[in-house]
Structures are given as C-alpha cells and as structure tokens.
C-alpha cells in the first residue's frame, strides 16, 4: 500500500481534535520560548519586562550559570564543590550504565524465557506479571538499608547493579519479539557449530537491535532526568539533574534569581533535546506492549 494511502477525511471530530492539539502545542511551546527568552535577561529587566525581548541579551547568564552550577558534597572529612562538567560526567556514567543494565537484563531474560521452554521460564513470567501488578508502597528505607549493606550506596556502579532488573514492561516487549523469531535461525547456527552464547550475541541480539536501541534510549533519557535516585542513593556523586534540583532550591546570591534558574534549566535540557532530535523517529511508535494476563 502506498505511504499515506490511509490518510483520512477531515470530519467534525477530527477538526475538534486538531484544534485541541493546536492549543496544546501552543501551551507547550509558549512557556518554553518564554523561559528561553527570560533566561537571557538581567533580573531587573525580567521584573520590569516579563514578556518582551531582553533589553540587553545576556548570553553571559549561561557562562555564569555554567560556572556557578555546583553541588557541595562530602569528600573524606571535608567538603568540596562538584561543578557542571563533573556532574555531566556522572550523568553520562549513571544514565549510560543504568540504561545499559536496565535494557540488557530484560533482553537476556526475555530471550531465555521465550526460547527455552523450561517450567522455570513460565514461572518467572508469571512472577514478573504478578510483581508488576502488586503495588509495594514505602520500601525506600529498606532499599537504602540494602544498598548500604551490600556496599552499593554512594557508588555509580552500585546503581548499575540495582537497576539491572528484569522487573519491568520491557521484559514483555523482548519476550514478544523473541517469541516471533523463527526457530530456523538458531537451528542453522547450531548445525554450523555455534554455541548458545554465540547464538545469543551474534544472531539473536542483532535481530532485536532496533528495539534494544529504542529501549536503551528511553531508559537513558529516564535515568538522565532522574534526580531522586541519585539524591537518595548517591548523595556525594551529583548528576546534572540532581545539580539542577539543588540549583533551583538556592535562595541566596546571584543564582537565586528567576532568569538564572531558567538558564540552569535550559542548560540541562539542551543535551536531552539534542538526543531527542537525533532519535525522535526511532522513539515514537516503535514499541508495543501487550496486556498483563
């Protein structure tokens, strides 16, 4: 079928939805644009001129914020300030590593439970669905104790381990994909002498690489934006989102003004926007999940 063959006729309902979407987009972008413009104003200019263009375009706000965007952490018996470049490094390590373990483990377990029809595979799938459905409230203190007990607390690699779980919807996504892969692939590889490890890494993983990458990017964005886990579990390894939380709670000094806080937000937002612009086609509409039967 030709691309766009399903394009539909405009009906009254679709016209209303179109109108609602236009309003939504305006309401979404106007504050973003306002924040961007306000981030380039001096504080007095912002107070006297809420909506106009800056009287003087203060790009210096960005360099000042870059230099003043720090978190004070404990370092041995003393304290030190962690600045933005170091926070970015921690963000890359935290988000990159956690996204990898949080994608690879569901992928591996999805492969094992869908291709190896042992009883345990069925039990594990049921356990995952039950655990996903069963809400557990208030386990954070216990999680902190456990992280301390195993020496994972305040370590980035500790977070990689803690996030390496298959208890999420992506397990079901991978299970569905691996179930759809025809058995001939693995049988042919086995005849050629390939072992199970090689079959997984050289045949099955490349087959699901598109989904793997999509899930990885979604996880990466989620971990990049997550400030609450680092705030609780890595108090002395501030990521850039954690830094933004601290930056926005400042009430004194040059960086307590609204334009500076908006500048900080734009600075943190830009890398994610870049990732999104590059991968947006891959992200939207490429993943499906089934039910929780």
């Amino acid at each position: 079928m030709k691309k766009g063959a399903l394009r539909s006729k405009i009906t009254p309902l679709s016209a209303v939805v179109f109108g609602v979407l236009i309003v939504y987009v305006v309401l979404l972008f106007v504050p973003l644009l306002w924040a961007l413009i306000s981030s380039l104003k001096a504080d007095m200019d912002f107070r006297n001129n809420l909506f106009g263009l800056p009287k003087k375009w203060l790009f210096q706000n960005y360099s000042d914020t870059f230099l003043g965007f720090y978190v004070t952490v404990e370092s041995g018996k003393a304290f030190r300030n962690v600045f933005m470049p170091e926070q970015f490094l921690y963000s890359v390590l935290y988000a990159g590593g956690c996204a990898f373990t949080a994608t690879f483990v569901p992928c591996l377990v999805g492969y094992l439970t869908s291709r190896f029809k042992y009883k345990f595979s069925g039990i594990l799938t049921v356990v995952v669905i039950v655990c996903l459905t069963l809400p557990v409230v208030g386990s954070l203190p216990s999680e902190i104790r456990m992280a301390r007990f195993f020496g994972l607390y305040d370590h980035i690699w500790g977070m990689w381990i803690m996030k390496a779980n298959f208890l999420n919807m992506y397990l079901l996504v991978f299970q569905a994909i691996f179930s759809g892969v025809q058995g001939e692939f693995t049988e042919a590889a086995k005849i050629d002498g390939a072992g199970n490890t090689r079959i997984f890494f050289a045949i099955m993983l490349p087959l699901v690489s598109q989904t793997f990458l999509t899930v990885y990017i979604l996880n990466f964005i989620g971990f990049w934006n997550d400030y609450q886990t680092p705030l609780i579990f890595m108090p002395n390894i501030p990521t850039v989102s954690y830094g933004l939380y601290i930056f926005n709670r400042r009430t004194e000094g040059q960086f307590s003004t609204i334009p500076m806080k908006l500048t900080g937000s734009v600075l943190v937002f830009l890398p994610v926007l870049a990732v999104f612009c590059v991968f947006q086609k891959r992200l939207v509409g490429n993943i499906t999940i089934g039910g929780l039967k």
Partner: protein
Amino acid sequence: MTEKKKDLLFYIVAISLPVLQFCIFYIGVNFNSLLLAFQEYDVASGSYRLCGFTNLSNVWEEFFNTFLLKNGFFNSLKVWALTTVISLPLSLLFSFFIYKKFPLKNFFKVALFLPSVISGMVTVVIYLYFVERAIPGMAEKLFGYEMVGWLGNVDTQFGAVLFYNIFYSFGGYILLFVGAMNSVDPSVSEAGALDGVSGLREFWYIVFPKVYPTFCTFLVLSVAGIFTNQFSLYSFYGIEASNNVMTFGYYLYAITSVATTAEYPRIAAIGVLMTLFVIPITLLVKYVLGKIGPKEDAV
C-alpha cells in the same frame, strides 16, 4: 555433553545473576521492609529489635487522628482519578488522530512526546515561574488586577499541580498507543473505509480492541501506583509541600529523604498498610478489565 544438557547449562548460568538480583532487590528489599514495620530502633545498641504490632497500630491511629495522613490518602486518590480519567481517553484520541494520518500528525507526535523526554525538574521550573510570574503579570497588564500565583495560593495550588500532571502526561501513553495502533492490518481499515464505516466505529471496533491490552496495562499499573506516585510534588516544593496538595507517594519520599535510621520503621509501617489497601483494588481492577472490553471481530 548432549545438546539438551548444554542448553540447560547455558540457561542456568545466564539466568542465575538476574534471578539473584531479583531475589535481593525485590524479594529481599520487600521482605526487609515488612520486617522493618515490626521493628523499632534501639538507640543504645544502634540496632533494630522486634516490637510487634506497635508501629502498625500507631500508624493506624495516626491515620484516623491526623489530618496529614488522611489528606495524603484522599489527595492520592483524587489526583489519580482525575489524571487517569482525563489523560487516558485524551491520549487515545490523540493517538488515533496520529494513526489516521491527519494533517501535521508527525509534528503532533513529536510535540506530544517531547514533554516526556524533558526532565521533570526542567518542566516544573518553567511551569512554576510561568504560572507564578508570567500569568499574574499578564493578568495585571491586560485586566489591571493583582493576581496571586496559582501554585502559591492555597486555594488553587491543588488544581495547578493537577493541571501540570495532566498536561505533561501524554508522551508515554502516546508512545505505546501509537505503537499498538500501528499493528492494525491496513487492509482491515481500508475495507472498513470502503464499507463506509465512520471514524468512531472504526476506532471502537477495529482500533480499540488492538489497543485494549495496552490500555488495561496502563490502567492497572496506574492503580498499582496510586500511593507511590509523587505527582511531581517533590520537584515543585522539595520537602515543603503543604498538606493541601500532599499525596502519599510524595509524603513517603519526602520523609525518607530526611529520615534518620530510627524513623524507618514508621515509614515501613505506613507502606505496609497502604500496600494491604491497594493490592485488592489493583487485583479487582485487573480482573474486571479482563472480563469486559471490546472484541476484535465485531465490526
């Protein structure tokens, strides 16, 4: 070694580490949380000791006698009900619009998904100052009256937080709904169009049955998350949110973030009580959703 034994060995080796992780960080954490609810901290020895049902009965009493927990409970239910009732149907409608390839569908797809890639902290900061400064400033300029910012005003802050949560909620839903809708066989839609099936009928009889499992998953998971969802309150207010807007998820995170080891058992006890309350509701919702719902071949 036979092929079957090789398979089994590979399976055991490959699955053991993920299962161990699950045993420690799900079963272990939750068992420990349950245990904490029955313990108290002994400052002298610096360790926990069993105290029976003291924590649970204290929290139970607290729940009926203090405004804080009661309010957190009802706020959680209110915010969940309103966000779900508004966000889910609107997301379905928007996804259908995108699926049907109406004008600007790609632009809308990206725009609707964009908020879910922006850090919650960033959107909160922008929304906060827009609502607190820009809108009152605009009202003063246009209508000449002084307006208090919605998030700072006790009477309006709940609505303002609610609006934020709904407004930025569509991305995740759209992502998976559009994915599910794309699995509809184009020839079925085309046949429907040739038979003069209206958009609404097509949605109900052809598209919605495909999306229904995803829809149910979202609904069940949202019910399961009623008392853990913070509704972005920590990003807005840090640990200083007022009782008017406080939800259980927020309350538990906020007190844990500043709690000492001695306070953990009370938090765990609150969690246990809330878990006991929400488990049957979640299972009931899952059961009902499994019984009802559209059939795929009813067109």
